[in-house]
Structure formats: C-alpha cells, structure tokens
C-alpha cells in the first residue's frame, strides 16, 4: 500500500513556503492566540494556526454585545480587539513558538501604509510562517472591508504588502461582492501566494423591543454552518479561474464539510465558529479526512483538491 500524505505546501514567491502537516488550520479570530485551546489538545497536531487579527496599535474592540446567535450561525462584532503588533510579538508569539505548527499572522490596517508597515515588521520575526491580509473585517469603521470590495484598492493593498514581505502571503477575501472570482484574480495578479475564502458576511439583527439594532455598530459578520453553501460555491468558482491555492472556510463543522471544500477546490481549510461548539473539531476533521482518503483511494491532498470539477 502506498503511503497517504496529508501535507500541504503553500509556496511563497521568495523561497519561503508555508508547510503544513495537514490541511486543517484554525480561522483567525476564533482561536485567540492558541492558549485557550492548548488546554484541550496538543496544538502540534494542527496544520497551522491563524491568530486573531493584528493591527499596528492595540485596539479595545467594540462595546458589547458582540455576539448574536442566528439560525445555525453567529453574528459577531468584536471590532478587532487585539494587543497590537508589539503586544502580540512580545506576549503571545513566544507561547506559539513552542509548537512546531506554523503560525499565520492575520493583519488589518486602516490604510495601505499600515498593511505595508505590519508586513515589514513581521517579515523576519521568528515564529511567523505566513501573513494573511484581512481586507474584509466588517466590524471596524474605516478601512479594511473597503479594501475587500473594490478591485483597485485590493490590488494596491496586496501589492504594497507583497513588496514589504518575503513571507508567503495569503489574501483573505470578503464574500460580500458580486464577483468573487474577479477579486481573487486581482489578488493573484497583485502577488498573493494563496487566497482565503471566505471571511464573514455582513448581517444585522434588531432588538424589537428597544427598536434598534442590537450591535452598536449596526452590522456584524455572519459565520457558522449557515454560510457554508455560499462559501463552498465561492471556492468552486475561484478554483476554476485562479492558479494559487485556496484556503477554504465558512461553516466547516465536520470532516464531511471539509472534504466538500477540498473537492470543490480548497488546498487547505480553516475551522472557525465550530471551535466554539466543539474545541476538538479540527482534530476530528483531520482524522475524518484521513479515513476518507484511505477509503476513497486518495494518496494526497493535491490529488483531491478540485476533484469534483469536470475534467478540463
């Protein structure tokens, strides 16, 4: 019997690569900086960890409530609460460095210059294996989401970040667009090494007795199983047109969801909201994919990626 490999390699353009022992990572913002989940299992088992979105300066985030449960989903309005890049490198990264699991730093900025500066600062920091540009955070007033829904600004922000980093560069796209393929192509052209699909969908909820939106910020980001069919469709579409690897996410709850994403075109995937319901989800997914591959005769992830597409 041939050996089954779950390794995934996302090649950067500068001879640096993101090498994951398996395709399962945790999604930014749903896994903190790993500490909390380390109490449940050995983080070495994960393919990669994407940490909570980092900004240049610390941010205190939005006023509560920050989470609203919706049918099979949640709306969040965390507002990018984070300790800032220095706090992250000083207080959070050392713990993560104790594992041999690659760390992906998710970065957000209000301006293109901020993204560039963040990229520059993180470029040679030990223990950082890749950057993920968040151009799709719905929870902050300026910047961010605006980059994710406009082709020109997306191009510029990716290009400038690219120029400032030798790390593998992942661009995490907003699903709140008419044409996700166009956005993915733009990111690819601007120098992205991989695409993360998808961030949260803009949604809202209203308190019918107070007669106003529940979130101070009015809108929040929808995640969880509810969005899976849409996220999966976007992965399908982007796979047909884009050549760089796709990291699929959006409502993945079990290994079957994960396999759907891989067959649709994802090279790797991230577990987000599902961590809240069952912290062991990533591990169960890793096992499930492995059994599926064995049963269906897939030898590696590359072979499986996009398999559901009709042959060209």
């Amino acid at each position, binding site marked *: 019997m041939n050996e089954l490999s779950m390794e995934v390699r996302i090649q950067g353009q500068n001879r640096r690569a993101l090498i994951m022992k398996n395709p399962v990572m945790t999604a930014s*913002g*749903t*896994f*903190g900086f790993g*500490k*909390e*989940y380390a*109490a*449940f299992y050995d983080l070495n088992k994960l393919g990669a960890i994407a940490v*909570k979105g980092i900004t240049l300066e610390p941010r*205190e*985030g*939005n*006023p*509560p*409530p*920050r*989470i*609203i*449960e919706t*049918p*099979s*989903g*949640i709306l*969040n309005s*965390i507002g990018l*609460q984070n300790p800032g890049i220095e706090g992250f490198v000083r207080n959070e990264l050392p713990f993560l460095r104790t594992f041999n699991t690659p760390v992906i730093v998710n970065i957000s900025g209000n301006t293109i210059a901020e993204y560039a500066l963040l990229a520059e600062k993180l470029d040679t920091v030990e223990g950082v294996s890749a950057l993920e540009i968040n151009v799709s955070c719905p929870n902050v007033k300026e910047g961010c989401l605006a980059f994710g829904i406009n082709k020109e600004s997306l191009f510029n922000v990716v290009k400038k970040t690219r120029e400032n980093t030798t790390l593998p560069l992942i661009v995490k796209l907003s699903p709140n667009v008419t044409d996700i393929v166009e956005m993915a192509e733009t990111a690819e052209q601007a120098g992205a090494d991989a695409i993360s699909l998808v961030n949260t969908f803009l949604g809202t909820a209203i308190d019918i007795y107070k007669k106003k939106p529940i979130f101070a910020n009015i809108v929040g980001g929808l995640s*969880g*199983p*509810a969005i899976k069919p849409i996220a999966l469709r976007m992965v399908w579409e982007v796979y047909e047109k884009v050549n760089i690897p796709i990291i699929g996410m959006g409502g993945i*709850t079990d290994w079957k969801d994960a396999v759907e994403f891989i067959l649709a075109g994802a090279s790797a995937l991230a577990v987000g*909201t599902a*961590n*809240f*319901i*069952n*912290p*062991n989800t990533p591990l169960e997914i890793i096992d499930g994919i492995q059994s599926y591959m064995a049963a269906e005769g897939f030898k590696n992830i590359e072979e499986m990626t996009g398999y559901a597409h009709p042959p060209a």
Partner: protein
Amino acid sequence: MHIDTSATVISNKKIIPEHYKMEIYSPQTASSAKPGQFIHIKTSRTTSPLLRRPISIYMRDKKRGIISILYKTVGTGTSLLTEYKPEDTIDIMGPLGNGFPLGDEQNRIALAGGGVGIAPLVFLALEASQLKKQVIFIQGAQCKTTLIETRELKDAGCIVETATDDGSAGFHGFPTELLKKYLEKERIDTVYSCGPTPMLKTIKKISLENKIQTYISLEQKMGCGIGACLGCACRVLVNESQGSTYKRVCADGPIFPAEVVVFDE
C-alpha cells in the same frame, strides 16, 4: 480544561414554574468545580441553537460525582434542556470561569441573589459553611411561587432570608434593601451577589457606600466560553488612574470585584 461529552443526566425536574433542577453525573467536573464557575452546555444535537449555553454550577456532590444546575426556561436552549431525561448523555464543557474568591478566614459573609441568580450562591454558601464562615443568604424573588427551596442551606447552618418584590413571602422589597439593613446592623466582611443587572448596579452602589469588599457575577452572551473569541466583553476599570478596558466574562470572570465593573456604557 475538560469537555465531558458523556456526562449523564441523573434527574431533571421542574421545581417551581419555569425553573428546573438537573443533576448531571460528571465526576471530573464535580471534583474540580469552584463556586461561581459554570458549565457550557450543548443543548441541541443539531446546528440550532448553535452555541453552547453557560449555566452556573448550583451544587455538587464530589463523592457521587454529581453536579447540579438550576435553570430557568427563557428561550430555545433552556427549553431544549427540559427535554433531557434520566440516562440521556449531555455534552458539557467545564468547569469554566474564575469562581468566587473565598478566603479561609472564619468570617461573616452575605450573599444576595435575585431569581435564578441564586444558583452559584447556593454552591458558594455550602462551601463557605464548610469553611466555618457565617453565611447570611438573601434570596430575592418576584413572589412566593418563584422562591427556590433552600433547605440545604439551613441544614448547613446558613442564615437564610427571603425578599419578594410583591411581599407575598418574607421581606417586602428587593434583596438589596434587605442586604442594606444587614450592613447597617452588623459587621459583614464580604458580599457576594448574582442576579439581574439592575440589582448588580445597586449592589455596586451599596458596596461603594459601605466600603465593603463585594464580588458580583456578570452575564454576557458567549461564543467560545473559554476566552478565545473575545465575544463576552465587559468593561472594567484597570487601575488607580481609572483607565478602563474590556475583560472577558467567561475567562476573566464571571466574577469581578463590584467596584471595577463599569455598567451602562
């Protein structure tokens, strides 16, 4: 940290209108739990309701490996809880949160709970009694029919007082008023409270006025329940310079010193 996906329901009974007591077999949770901590329960086997529900530990029996919870049915999740029958497995995570700080001095403490908020205070009172503290336990309820039986507390030597909003049993008024009377007439070393937000606000005021060490249990909608998602923010003061910041109810709390909690932002 501990997820017990094979915890077993021992009993699940309505004790007064809309309030249920459930006993759950989970030895590991029972042995490590501290008063004020909670368990995070997956109420459904499907994706709706999606999130777990935080419920305080109400009592525990280390020997038998059993914890119990006291819950009020307010929505889908708590309604689904009522459908669990003895021998059903239930997926719980816990114990979570910091718990009430409880020194081992043999001093006098007062506990004031409103509604289902008495749940963590019962656990606290029982533990404090074992540490030979004198416990004054004030239970507030809307009316006689929503008063929760507290025999165990009396058996443990606590002084149990009740207040009802409509005067149908015990003191006519809020538990906070009863607490005030106590503070006026005798020395209390520490106050502990859990209940609806308006009550906690009053407790904070009383605490500041009387300069008495007070701990309150906060509530917030939760995502992960373990400190990772930053979904359960509450605003607290951090230091003398009176700067304030967001803390996580699930991991930094749910228990906070009353004086640091910033209400109404």
